[in-house]
């Protein structure tokens, strides 16, 4: 495998994990525009643990994910009281606050960035992505996954059937935080350098964009969206400077034709039927 291919695949793996981080709350109808903020928490805390405290990489990255999840749970309480676009804006603000603090935190290099000593290659990162995908498959088939979809479509009715809506949403938000922290930890230990600027609202927005594009109804949607987002600009690489232009045009086009995302539940069921017949 060429270095180029490995680099693209690593990026794809990290983007897939980040996509599932955004998907869980999104499946329950919550637009989390703070995913990059949680990634930053995971990246910085794992980097500090492995750099300064000599933790092993798996331990440090796991701890980073837990930190991000813990923070998600802590801020989830107040933030999730807001709804719809208000929630999107609240998480967006959260993202900017986290980034602003990190840029000013001299312990971790401030705006100059923070070098990470430990390094992870493609294999462990791809394994993590595969693990996250399996976890998503599992959750998607669980009652939690079903309740999330139900809440997204009809919160009132779901609550009347006894589902504790705020608790369920907090659970999704927290698991999303853990996954984002994981993606951040992996990112930092792969690229060996992190800076606050990278974890901007634009990154959060791009992640949500990829999930919506892939489709939120099925477990496959986020992976498809992440692949679309990571690979499409590479396909257009020949067009050099034009690639993001073409990519953006593709996004607009897809959303105009298929606002429910590339893959819907109905598509998936049709696909299964075809496979079974064949």
């Amino acid at each position, binding site marked *: 495998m060429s270095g180029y291919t490995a680099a693209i695949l690593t990026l794809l793996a990290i983007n897939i994990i980040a996509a599932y981080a955004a998907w869980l709350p999104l499946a329950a109808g919550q637009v989390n525009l703070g995913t990059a903020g949680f990634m930053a928490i995971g990246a910085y805390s794992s980097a500090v643990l492995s750099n300064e405290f000599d933790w092993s990489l798996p331990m440090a990255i796991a701890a980073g994910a837990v930190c991000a999840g813990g923070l998600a749970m802590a801020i989830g309480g107040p933030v999730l*009281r807001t709804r*719809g*676009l208000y929630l999107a804006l*609240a998480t967006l*603000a959260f993202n*900017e606050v986290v980034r602003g603090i990190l840029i000013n935190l001299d312990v971790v290099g401030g705006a100059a960035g923070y070098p990470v000593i430990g390094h992870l290659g493609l294999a462990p990162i791809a394994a993590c992505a595969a693990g996250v995908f399996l976890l998503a498959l599992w959750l998607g088939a669980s009652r939690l996954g079903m309740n999330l979809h139900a809440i997204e479509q009809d919160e009132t009715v779901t609550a009347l059937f006894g589902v504790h809506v705020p608790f369920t949403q907090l659970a999704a938000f927290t698991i999303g935080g853990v996954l984002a922290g994981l993606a951040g930890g992996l990112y930092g230990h792969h690229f060996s350098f992190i800076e606050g600027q990278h974890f901007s609202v634009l990154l959060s927005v791009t992640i949500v964009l990829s999930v919506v594009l892939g489709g939120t109804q099925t477990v496959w949607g986020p992976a498809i969206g992440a692949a679309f987002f990571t690979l499409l600009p590479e396909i257009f690489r020949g067009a050099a400077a034009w690639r*993001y232009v073409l990519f*953006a045009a593709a996004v*607009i086009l897809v*959303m105009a034709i298929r606002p429910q995302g590339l893959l819907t539940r109905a598509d998936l069921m049709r696909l299964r039927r075809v496979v079974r017949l064949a």
Partner: protein
Amino acid sequence: MIAQQLVNGLMLGGIYVLVAVSFTLFFGCLNFLNFSVPALFMLGGFLTWAGVAAGLSWPLAVLLALTVAALASLLVERLTWRLQRGGPPLIPLVSSLGFLILFENLVLVRWGSDARAIPSPFGDANWRIGDVVIGLPQLFGLILSISLVFGLQALLKRTKLGRGIRSLAENAETATMLGVEVDRVAPRLFLLAGLFCALAGVLFSLSYQLVSPYMGDQVALKGLSAMVLGGMGNIWGAVIGGLVIGLVEIFAVGALSADHVNVVVFGILLLSLIIKPTGLFGDPALGQQKL
């Protein structure tokens, strides 16, 4: 010192006012969080530079920039809101983000990503009142912003189009029943709101004499905060919110450092969303009901 900061804050706030009003028009009337606003802002500012750099006169360059931004806004209406209205509000939001990436990268392809210095047509015209320096371009910008909002207010109150927009904002179905055609009113609203933020971009470039393809991102986030702070869908709320955010930013720079600005501004946004999501002057029914 404090007087100078007050002046600077209000001047900066004048820019945010226009962006916040633009956001609030889209949100209040169409329930659409339009993320192409930063790109329209950038088009206004950047194309003014491009026009001047290509040898056009100032007024002509501004006119050209505003025209392109207005057409861009109409394109956004056609390909996002018109196709996706009635569905979940997230969908047009995502599409409009696509347009943000599209416009920024189109400019990038043509002119590169560097920030460009743009000479002020007014030179270094200043007013001095005691120790306080008031930049004339900035002052002009602030006055223009506020008068435009007054103009908008008059348009909404006194004209047929304004009444149509307001009925649409209250209840689209009733408006349709009365004979308001959404597909005719919406493009005009996009034109109006698009011009507001493009003009903010022009004023920004004239006041701060620097443009780049990404100049809209941070300003738009501040404008968004201003809209939320003032109360989504409320025009005068957006004005107050814009001025407050401008003041907060300048005072945060003075008291802490330029790097802390975002922590303070977005901290305020986060807190205000948690404590009072409807903002200072927002209609509690708006947003709650529509979403």
